[in-house]
């Protein structure tokens, strides 16, 4: 067993882990972070995507021991502490970018990372940017719309202008 310490969604955890433990299993089974899910064995589906020191990683390709000392953010840690949703979360809801929701945590975490690299992606750039994440329900079109809508909102709020209320009023 190896001692690992990591900060996950703002809380520091220290645990003894088997060296072979994958980060995703550590998150789910030791820390109870079950918002992050496992969809495949081969790092193809991206359902387990989290941020490791600010970078999107598939947490099934990272050993827990590799995350020793790291800052991990999961889907459970991206909303404001007061509960206000991250713009990408809000946009997935607004644009109907999810159906069963199983791929959604990974899809949202990958999209946040994509927008950090490219704050104003085209349709094709979004599609290429999230091609490491599989969704079986949506056909991706509304995910692409959601990412672009979030991009617009994040740009206008970072520019210091008031973010326009999204059309959620009627919802």
């Amino acid at each position, binding site marked *: 067993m190896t001692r690992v310490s990591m900060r996950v969604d703002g809380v520091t955890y220290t645990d003894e882990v*088997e060296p072979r433990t994958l980060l995703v*299993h550590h998150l*789910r*089974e030791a820390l109870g*972070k*079950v*918002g*992050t*899910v*496992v*969809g*495949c*064995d*081969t790092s*193809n*589906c991206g*359902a387990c995507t989290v941020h490791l020191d600010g970078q999107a990683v598939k947490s099934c390709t990272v050993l827990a021991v590799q995350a020793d000392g790291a800052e991990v953010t*999961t*889907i*459970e840690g991206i*909303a404001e502490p007061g509960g206000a*949703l991250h713009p990408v*979360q809000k946009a*997935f*809801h*607004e644009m*109907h970018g*999810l*159906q*069963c*929701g*199983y*791929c*959604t*945590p990974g899809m*949202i975490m990958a999209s946040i990372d994509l927008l950090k690299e490219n704050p104003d992606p085209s*349709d094709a750039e*979004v*599609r*290429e940017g*999230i*091609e*490491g*994440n*599989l*969704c*079986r*329900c*949506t*056909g*991706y*079109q*509304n*995910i*692409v719309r959601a990412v672009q809508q979030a991009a617009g909102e994040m740009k206008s709020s970072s520019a210091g202008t008031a973010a326009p209320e999204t059309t*959620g009023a*009627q*919802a």
Partner: protein
Amino acid sequence: MTLTEDPATTAVEKEVGKARRRKEDARLITGRTTWTDNMVLPGMLHMSVVRSPVAHGKISSIDVSAAKAAPGVVAVFTGRDIADEQGSIPCAWPVTPDMVNPGHPSLAVDEVNHVGEGVAVIIARSRAAAADAIELVDVDYEPLPPVLDMEEAVKADADLCHDHTQSNTSYHFVFDAGEAGTGTDTEQAFADAEVVVSRRFVNQRLIPAFMEPRSVVVQPQGDNYTMWSATQVPHILRVMLASVTGVPEHKLRVIAPDVGGGFGGKLQVNPEEVIALLVARRLGKPVKWTETRSESLMTAHHGRDQIQYVDIASDREGNVKALRVRLLADMGAYLRLITPGVPALGAFMFPAIYKFPAYRFECDGVFTNKVPTDAYRGAGRPEATFAIERIMDELAVELGMDPLELRRKNWIQAQEFPFTTVAGLEYDSGDYETATQQALELIGYDELREEQRRRRESNDPVQLGIGFSTFTEMCGLAPSRVLGSLSFGAGGWEHAAIRMLPTGKVEVVTGSTPHGQGHETAWSQLVADALGVPFEDVEVLHGDTAIATKGLDTYGSRSLVVGGTAVVKAAEKVIAKARKVAAHLLEANEDDLEFADGRFSVRGTPGASLAIQEIALAVFAAHDYPEGIEPSIDADATFDPVNFSFPHGTHICAMEVDTDTGFVKIRKYACVDDVGTIVNPLIVEGQVHGGLAQGIAQALYEEAVYDADGNLTTGTFVDYLVPSAADLPHFDTGNTVHEAPGNPIGAKGVGEAGCIASTPAVVNAALDAVRHLGVSDIRMPLTPERVWRAIHQGGDGGDRAAAGTNAYGGASTESTTGVSTPASSLGGDR
């Protein structure tokens, strides 16, 4: 000055038709989910499954001693250990009286019949300990020849998949319109025909590939058992588990918590569900099993897999005269829940929207040493739609006609509804011409044809093709009497209940269990309109047999059509019960009461009114209510449809084919679907998009490939190509609306439309691009390799590289040493 109120502006806005954002999303976008694998219970044990590495063989010995001694292992059970209590995985659809069902043990006892079949289970204190011990189980197999090719399997001297059966044919199902009295003599029609076109199509094996792997947790409590399962069908599962295991139905509770997609793939009674229940019963401890993705691809049921021999007859003007379909339908090694019924359900859809005078359908269900097939999005109808829409194009080519003109000449006209088809189905409503016109405009048809002409004239290496699919489907499964006439083992009704809470909130209980479709949102919209209560005040409960006590779950585009209607019917009963109480409290005659926007008012007496919430509170207090009735306005309803509903639509694909590389790329995709009344346009659009993705994936990407030994070579997402966002085009979608007359909502169902319609449109488009180069068919999926071979070498592109070869590199574990078959390309021991 008197202010006149305009009733049109004061009326409460209707919920039905609104693009409500989904209630379900809040938990799903924040990770506050209840997937079955999240479940942790005190003392919970973990199960792993030891699976066969051979496709067909006798189990000569199993040694579990090393596994039993491994750290953390609590128990090991082989098929022999549970042989007396495991029963057989049920098959609810004996499509013919003499159908052969070889029986389907949850764990193999004497013989394995497909790679991945369970032979033993390990029960351990952790997931890792259970997985580690798999390698310690030593199983010896005496290999038998695997039966893998359907056309070989039905020959007289074929090797047998099950040696206790006479042949590899499970059943021979026939529908003959002449005999049924719904058409004329098919053989005569072919004998008299001026033009006959015959084709053999391969509708390849697919894997549903829901994103959430299957998972089950069973908790024993005395002689009661609670099962959480990632299932589409908790109600069906409960009944079936009771009949298989002998655990009485009233001692079983099945819960489907958040379920991550199904697409028919979770419409099943899984061997692992049965075993988990038996193990929990034996050990008296909670047990969890969650599959890996490789297990899922290898052992969860597959879909499609038909060889279709299709003949079409017409006169020289293109008036169709007859259709004849013969199918070989791969059952896989066993019959699961509705394995044999899938092609039989499709039988009625081959004539599609065309007015064939004569039709004959024959299907052989064939056993092979592969994982069983069963429902996958569309279940029988995509296969039928593919065959008819492909052969219509082939006939058009033969006649030198425009493919759309040929369709138009033969399809049912708008004024002919309701129309009884040659298959005996009564199509409810629609207008194929209008949907087609809209789709042509949406895709910009004329410009695309012009571009196609230019590319052809200039011999452009990238050719353009346009493909159509003018489809219909039977949805709203299903009228119980019709299911009875097709020998299905259950009905097709759905149940709902409405509970009016004293605080004015409303609980809606539905027997239709969602797994991504948005029932909570759509049902809230229905109830908000029916009862005049706020959308936010409605809570939809589902997926737990102790809460939603009656139901037949979610599949076959049935939820809104059948389950939604049950909700509306229950709401009508609530209003009828409330009316009596309102009349009493308002001291009025029931007949003088009007119910609108959630209030009862007395006609001609302004101001005298009661909201339905006030009545709910009044009957809760029960201080003052009429004599002779119960103090409750709660109600439930069971709705059994009289007919199916028939969504339809026109799908058009424009496809670029690179003749140098064989690479195909969808340039544009447009479709106009008629799914009847649209309750929530956002959800409808989402369902169409998702269906399109899966239908296009069949045409271009997905295929479950087996090698010559029966190993699945597409056993991971590296090899089984579920498309990514980069692999799919933008979809232009539209709707026409012809209400379904068979239900008060007017809905026809939308879950399967995109998946059923799109596949032939895509293949027809690719062929349209290269037909002038002599290509008349390309096998699905249209990989660059196949397309290139079809263009440059002729034929249909042939098998995938891994198919029928020996992809299995050699013995990788002790238990596979010495395993070989006469069909192995390597031969001998490996």
